[in-house]
C-alpha cells in the first residue's frame, strides 16, 4: 500500500511542481533577486548570515507557500472540479491514503523552497563582507513553512468543497501578516512565537548574535508540530479518524503547544538578560589610524569599511577638529525588539552611559547594517559629532550646517555618495540619518540635501577649499541656506518654509 501512496505522491508532486502558480511563485522569488544580481547592484554585500532568512521566510510563506496552498487545494478538489468523483469513489485506494499522498506531494515543493533558500543564503555567504553565523534552523524553517501552507490548502479542500476559499485565505492571511508586522507585540507575549514568522521583529534592525534571543530551533519545532497537526486534521476530517491518526493528532498538538510555551518562557528570560547586558562588554575594540572602533564580535571585519568612511570624513575636516580622541561604537537594541520608529524606545541614554563607562565617551553610533545608505548615515553622524562636539542627537539640521554635514558625508567614499542618492530617492521631505538605524539621529531637509548634492557634482578639492575657507560661518547656527549657497558659490535656492523645526 505504501508503494501506491508514494506512486500517487510522485504524480501529484510533479503536478504541484508544474502548476503555473508554483512556477510563477518560483520566478517571483528568484527573478527580482537574480535580476538585481545580474543587472542591478550585483551580488549583495555585507550580508548578515544570522538574519536574512527571516525576511526570506516571510516572502517564502506568502509567495511559494501561498502558491502551494492554492495548488494543493485545487488538487484535493480536482475530482469535484472535473466531475470524476463518481468513478474515482469506487477505486481501491482509500480516501485517507489519497490525502496522505497529496500531503507527501508537498515535499518536492518544500524542497524547491529549501533550494531557493540555500542558494540565496549561499550567495550571501560567499558575497563580500558577509558576517555572522548561518543558523540552519532558520534556513530549515523555509521548507517547513511551505509544507505548512500546502497542508492548509489540503485541509481547506477537505473542509470546504469550494476552490474560492483557498485564494481568499491567501489574500486574507497576507493582509493579517502585514497588519501584525506593523503592530508591536509585547516582548513577553506568546504572539510572536505562535506566529509562523517573527514579523513583529523590525527586520531592518538585525541584532548581533550575542543579543539574539529568538529561539529558532524551538520555533522550527513548533512549525513542524503545526504542520503535522494540520496534516493530521486533513486526514481526520470526513471519516479518516483511525486510532493511528488520532494518536498522531494528539502528539502533534502536544508538541505544538509545548513548543509555544517553552519558546515564550525561555525567551522571556533571554530578553531580560539581553536588555540588562552592557553592550560594550560584548564588543571588541580596535584602533585604526587613531580612531577607536568597537564592534560586536562578528562585525569586526567591517571595521576596515568603517575606517575608510571615517577617513573620508576626517579628510575634509579642519585639523583642529580631527585631533580630538574619536570613538565609533556599534549599537544594537537588545533582544531585537525595540519600539519601531519610537525614539523613546531607543535606549540612547543607556548607550551614552555605557560609552562613558567603557572609556569612549561621546562615541559615534553605528548600526548592524552596512551598505544601502547606512554608510552615508554613519558619515553624516560622524561629521555632525565632530563639528558640534556632541554625538548625533535627535535634531534637524538646516542651513549651512545641514549642507556641510551632508556634503562631507556624501564625498567621504563612492559608497557614501551612492548611498546618499539612494536614500534621497526613497525619502520625502528630508533625509534621516538615525543612530542605530532607527529612532534618534539627525535629519536634513530636502533643500539642504539639494544644495549638498549640487556641491557633490563639483570637484571635491574646489568645494573643500571653499568649505574650509568659510567653515566658521557655514557651521554656525543661524547661517541660512541662501547665505550658505552664496558662501559656496552656488545660486541661491528658493527658500520654502516646509515646517521643519531646525536645530
Amino acid at each position, binding site marked *: *500500500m505504501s508503494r501506491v501512496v508514494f506512486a500517487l505522491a510522485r504524480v501529484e508532486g510533479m503536478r504541484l511542481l508544474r502548476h503555473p502558480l508554483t512556477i510563477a511563485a518560483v520566478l517571483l522569488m528568484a527573478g527580482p533577486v537574480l535580476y538585481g544580481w545580474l543587472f542591478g547592484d550585483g551580488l549583495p554585500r555585507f550580508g548578515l548570515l544570522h538574519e536574512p532568512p527571516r525576511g526570506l521566510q516571510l516572502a517564502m510563506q506568502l509567495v511559494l507557500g501561498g502558491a502551494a496552498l492554492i495548488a494543493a487545494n485545487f488538487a484535493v478538489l480536482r475530482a469535484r472540479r472535473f466531475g470524476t468523483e463518481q*468513478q474515482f469513489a469506487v*477505486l481501491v485506494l482509500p480516501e485517507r491514503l489519497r490525502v496522505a499522498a497529496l500531503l507527501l506531494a508537498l515535499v518536492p515543493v518544500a524542497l524547491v523552497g529549501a533550494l531557493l533558500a540555500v542558494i540565496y543564503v549561499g550567495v550571501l555567504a560567499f558575497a563580500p563582507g558577509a558576517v555572522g553565523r548561518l543558523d540552519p534552523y532558520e534556513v530549515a524553517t523555509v521548507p517547513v513553512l511551505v509544507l505548512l501552507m500546502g497542508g492548509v490548502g489540503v485541509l481547506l479542500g477537505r473542509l470546504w468543497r469550494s476552490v474560492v476559499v483557498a485564494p481568499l485565505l491567501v489574500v486574507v492571511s497576507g493582509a493579517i501578516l502585514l497588519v501584525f508586522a506593523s503592530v508591536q507585540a509585547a516582548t513577553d507575549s506568546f504572539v510572536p512565537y505562535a506566529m509562523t514568522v517573527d514579523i513583529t521583529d523590525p527586520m531592518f534592525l538585525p541584532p548581533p548574535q550575542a543579543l539574539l534571543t529568538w529561539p529558532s530551533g524551538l520555533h522550527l519545532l513548533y512549525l513542524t508540530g503545526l504542520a503535522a497537526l494540520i496534516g493530521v486534521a486533513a486526514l481526520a476530517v470526513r471519516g479518516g479518524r483511525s486510532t493511528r491518526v488520532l494518536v498522531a493528532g494528539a502528539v502533534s498538538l502536544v508538541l505544538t503547544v509545548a513548543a509555544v510555551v517553552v519558546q515564550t518562557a525561555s525567551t522571556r528570560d533571554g530578553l531580560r538578560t539581553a536588555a540588562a547586558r552592557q553592550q560594550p562588554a560584548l564588543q571588541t575594540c580596535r584602533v585604526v589610524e587613531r580612531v577607536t572602533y568597537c564592534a560586536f564580535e562578528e562585525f569586526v571585519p567591517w571595521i576596515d569599511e568603517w575606517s575608510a568612511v571615517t577617513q573620508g570624513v576626517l579628510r575634509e575636516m579642519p585639523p583642529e577638529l580631527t585631533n580630538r580622541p574619536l570613538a565609533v561604537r556599534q549599537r544594537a537594541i537588545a533582544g531585537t525588539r525595540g519600539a519601531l520608529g519610537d525614539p523613546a524606545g531607543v535606549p540612547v541614554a543607556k548607550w551614552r552611559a555605557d560609552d562613558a563607562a567603557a572609556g569612549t565617551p561621546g562615541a559615534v553610533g553605528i548600526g548592524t547594517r552596512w551598505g544601502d545608505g547606512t554608510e552615508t548615515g554613519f558619515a553624516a553622524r560622524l561629521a555632525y559629532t565632530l563639528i558640534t562636539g556632541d554625538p548625533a542627537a535627535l535634531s534637524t539640521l538646516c542651513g549651512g550646517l545641514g549642507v556641510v554635514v551632508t556634503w562631507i558625508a556624501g564625498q567621504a567614499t563612492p559608497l557614501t555618495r551612492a548611498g546618499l542618492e539612494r536614500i534621497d530617492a526613497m525619502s520625502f521631505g528630508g533625509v534621516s540619518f538615525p543612530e542605530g538605524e532607527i529612532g534618534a539621529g539627525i535629519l536634513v531637509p530636502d533643500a539642504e540635501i539639494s544644495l549638498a548634492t549640487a556641491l557633490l557634482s563639483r570637484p571635491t578639492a574646489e568645494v573643500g577649499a571653499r568649505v574650509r575657507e568659510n567653515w566658521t560661518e557655514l557651521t554656525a547656527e543661524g547661517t541660512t541656506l541662501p547665505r550658505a549657497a552664496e558662501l559656496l558659490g552656488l545660486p541661491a535656492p528658493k527658500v520654502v518654509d516646509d515646517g521643519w523645526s531646525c536645530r
Partner: protein
Amino acid sequence: MTPAPTVRIEGLGLRYGRTAALDDVSLAFGDGVTGLLGRNGAGKTTLLRIVATAMAPDRGTLSVLGHDPGTAAGRLEVRRRLGYLPQDPGFYRRFTAFEFVEYVAILQEFGHRRERRAEVLRVLAAVGLADAAKKKIKALSGGMRQRVALAAALVGDPALLVLDEPTVGLDPEQRLRFRELIAGLGEGRTVLLSTHQTEDVMSLCHRVAVLDQGKVRFEGTPTELARLADGRVWSAPARAEGALAAWRTGAGTYRNVGTPPPGADLVEPTLEDGYLMLVDTSAEAVSA
C-alpha cells in the same frame, strides 16, 4: 453445474425521500453482456451505482463477485475486480490520456511503475487509443474521451464491468466503434450495460432486464423481450385507432403496435416493440 452469478440481487430497495428509486428488485447476472433498459428515472443508474459500490441500498441483499459490498472488506474486494464507467464520466482535461489512465491505475493499486505503465498501455491499446496516449484529454473528441473513460474502467482487467449509458452523445460511427469494443469485453467477464438504445441491447446483450419505476418488469433474452409483442404488431395502409404507437415506414405503410384488429397483417416484432408493449401496458413483471 451452472456457475454462480457474478451479481445476485434480492429484494433491493432504495428511496430518495418519498420516491422509490428501486423497489424490491431481484436480479442475477453472470458472464457476458447484460443490458438494462428503462426510461429516464426508471432506476437504472441507481442500480448500477449500488452494484458498483458507489452507494448502498436501504434494504435487500447484494452479492457482487461473491462478496457483500455492505461490509468494508467486501467492498474493497469488489472494487479490486470492478470497472465502472459512470453515465457522465469526468476527465482531467489537462492530463494526457496516458496520465489520466495511469492516475486511475495508481488508485487501483498499481504501485509498481513498470507494471502500471504496461497496464496503461494495454488498456489504451484495447480501446484503440495507443496512438493518442500522449494527447491532452482536452484535445480529444467526445468519442475518444469516452474511450479513455472505458480504458480507465478496464484497468486491472476487471471481472465485472459496469457501463452506464456509454454511448450517449456519440455520433453513429463512434457508437458503432464503441459497440464493437463492448462486444469484445463480454467474453470471460460480466458486463452490465445500461442503455436507452435498443439496438445496443439487440446487438450486444445475451440477457436484458427492463426496469420501470424502480421495479423489474422483465428479465430474459432480447429475443424473449421482442416476443412480448408477438401478434401485437401489424402493417396497415393507415394509422390504426387505439394503437399504442404507429409510424409510417419507408415503404409507405403504417407499422402499428397494440391490439390488432381481426385479420390484420401481422409482422415480426422487434425488441423495441416488445419493450414498448412492456412499459406502455404497465404489465406486472414478466419472467421469461
